[in-house]
Each structure stands twice: as C-alpha cells, then as structure tokens.
C-alpha cells in the first residue's frame, strides 16, 4: 500500500505516536484499523464494552451524556490530532458516555483487548501508552473541575 494510506504511516504522523520506537509502532499496527464515521454516527455508546480507542485524523467528535429532563448534553469534544477513549485501560472496560461524529470523522482505531495482551508481553509498550494516556486523563480531569466551577456564570 502507498503513501498516507499506509497504516504504519498513518500511525507515525499522528501526534500521539511522537517519540515512539519502530518496534512499538509495529506492535500498535497489529491492533489498528483505519476507520471513517459519517456525520451523526456513534463511535461508541455509554455502557457498552470499551474495547477500542481512537486517534482522530480529521473531523470532530462530541462526547455526550443523556441527562433527562435536560436532554442530551455535550460535555467535551475531540478533534484532529486528539486521542479519544481511555476506558479500555481501566476495569471494568465500559464507556462512560456517548461519542458522536459531529462531522465526518477519519480515525485510527485500536483494539484494546489486543493491546492489553501485548502489554503483558512487553511492559515497555504499556509504559509508553500510559505515559501518553495519563496526561490526557489528568488534563481532562482538570478541565472538568474548571467546567464545574462555571467560571463564566454571574457571581
């Protein structure tokens, strides 16, 4: 396969893989797929088994919670260059919210079960991935705490 459509190349150009060794990129490739979601399609839904995660190449994903009687609320979003989903690392591996393509989304998807298996074979790969996911989780938690403060609300 040629150029940008080569899976390995797509992994390499994504910001999330920066600094990863060839060996680990190769291991990731074995669990990866190149996918596309039409506008409005769901990447995953709350409560489902979290067996994947995504590296977004183009497009935008809204993370949503259905909260009657308020309706469905967007709580976060992800765009090109972002990684989406960490429930695949944390037991019981279940999605906390819905993820919906707000516009057409092209992404790499990784099979978490496959990758967790590789972590057991090569703990250095696990370390590489945690090193990338933990700051993401950290930032997301901080952002959530700021959102909770409702900083733009009237005093």
């Amino acid at each position, binding site marked *: 396969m040629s150029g940008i459509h080569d899976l390995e190349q797509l992994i390499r150009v994504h910001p999330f893989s920066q600094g990863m060794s060839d060996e680990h990129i190769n291991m990731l490739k074995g669990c990866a797929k190149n996918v596309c979601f039409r506008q409005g399609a769901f990447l995953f839904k709350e409560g489902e088994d979290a067996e994947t995660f995504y590296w977004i190449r183009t497009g935008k994903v809204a993370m949503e919670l259905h909260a009657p009687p308020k309706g469905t*609320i*967007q709580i976060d979003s992800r765009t090109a*260059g972002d990684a989406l989903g960490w429930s695949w690392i944390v037991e019981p591996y279940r999605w906390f919210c819905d993820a*919906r393509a707000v516009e057409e989304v092209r992404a790499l998807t990784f099979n978490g079960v496959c990758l967790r298996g590789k972590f057991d074979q090569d703990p250095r790969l696990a370390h590489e991935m945690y090193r990338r996911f933990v700051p993401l989780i950290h930032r997301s938690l901080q*952002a959530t705490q700021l959102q909770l403060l409702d*900083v*733009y609300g009237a005093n």
Partner: protein
Amino acid sequence: MEQIEVVHVPKAEGMTGDPMVPRPVSIRELQHETHDTFTLTLEPPDRDQGLPFIPGQFTMLYLFGNGEVPISISGDPAAPMRLVHTIRAVGSVTRPLQDMQRGSMLGVRGPFGTGWPVEEARGKDIVIVAGGIGLAPLRPLIYHLLGQREDYGRVSILYGARSPADILYRRELESWGGRFDVDVSVIIDHAATDWYGDVGVVTALLGKVRCDAGNTIAMTCGPEIMMRFAARELNDLGVPDEQIYVSMERNMQCAVGMCGHCQYGPTFVCKDGPVFRLDRIKPFFSIREI
C-alpha cells in the same frame, strides 16, 4: 515588600476637565447581545473629538441617582465618535442600565487606565484568550489588530463561553473566523446536540495554537481563574510571563488611584491597570487574601 515596577501606557488624549466630575452623555443605541448582556452606544461628551481611547481602557459610567461602575470601552479605537460599552447585567447599577431607553442621559468619566500593549506587540504573533464578558475589553484590541493587520504576525483569538447562547459578538466572531489571516476558535463549557463547535475549557485550545512562542504577545481577559490557568498553559508552550498581559477587573470607586478601593498588592487596578504585564503582578496573582 518587593518593589513592583508598573508599565504605564500613555493615557488617551480624550480625557479633559476634572477626572472626578462625570460629563453628561446620551444613549444613542442599546442592543441586546445575550440574555444578560447588552451594548450601549453613547454620544461622546465632546461632539467634535469624540472620546479617543487606547484599547483596554475603561470609563466610569454613572447612572444618576443609582451609582457608578467601571466598564471597559468595547468599541473601535479608530472611531472615537462612537462610545461603546458592552455590559453584563449583574447588580444594582448594571441591571437598571439594561432597561434604559434611547436618549436617556448617563454620566461618564474617563477614559482611565492602561491599555493593551499594541506598540510592543508590533511584528509579533498575537494570542488572545478571552472568556465570557472578557471578550468586550479585548474587542477594541481586535479592531486595532485587524485594522493594521500587516503590522502583526499570526493572530489567534481563543474564546470560551458558558453555552452557545452566551457567546458574545457571535456574528463578528464568525466574520473574523472567515478571514484567512486570523485563527478564531470558540469553545463552550457544555451544549445541546445542535452545537457543532468545540466543547471544553478555553485553555484546551492553547495546545493547538500556532505561534512562535519566543516572539508572541498573549493578552487575556476573563474570570481570574481562567486567566491564571491560561497563563500557565502559555508558559508551558514557552511564552514567558513577560510576554503575557492580563486585565484585572477588581471593584473600584474613584478610578484615579485615590480611594484605595481597588488596591492589588502595591498597585491600584484603576491607575496602574487594568492591563498588567503578568510578571509585574505575578506574586499576587494567586494569593487568596488579595
């Protein structure tokens, strides 16, 4: 106590007469922006010269019989005949202001305070981080940058609001975003499903901003906590405190550094600010007691 050196931007020419005496102005136009925010266009007190000001400066608006409030000028500095203020109705003066009619009279003092460092920023990349009503004091700066676009490097405007309905100057943001020479990103805290933009906090946008950190001037206005986190994120990108400017909107009364109401560390927000270079006030930026 450590000595704080304050950067003084020269005051606008427009201030004449006794700075303590309000001059009568009439309301030319009142436009509702969001459910709690409105824009007042006033006839300037001087019908010949208007009210010249530096982007970032404010006036004291006096609602007769009610009280006086500091409000930033949010109009175009190149059009001093239109004295524009965007105001959020929060309390005893700003709420009744919202119900004023065209032709009603107000008092105005000023302009007061320091402005955004438009001269120092020449030739540099510009990152503007605004939150909520904080876009209003930055709008004159944006007009200035767009009016003299070739004098500046990359211009990025990052704006955070509470919900899509709370977005200020929505049409203008859309039109600035439509230009090829300005990057505009809007992010909101939460939204219904009909919102197609970003969701999250404004600091999250900084990670994707395109600028040469060493040659960037960042200017931010919004809730203090937002500015604090924006400053940290800018530091992480490589923009030092000396290149970050914040607008501190502490409550004030006299506006000329006499009453001490707005004292902030060893400075007064009214005369030494409201725009401060971050390194000059950093020791006080996150002290709870101040």
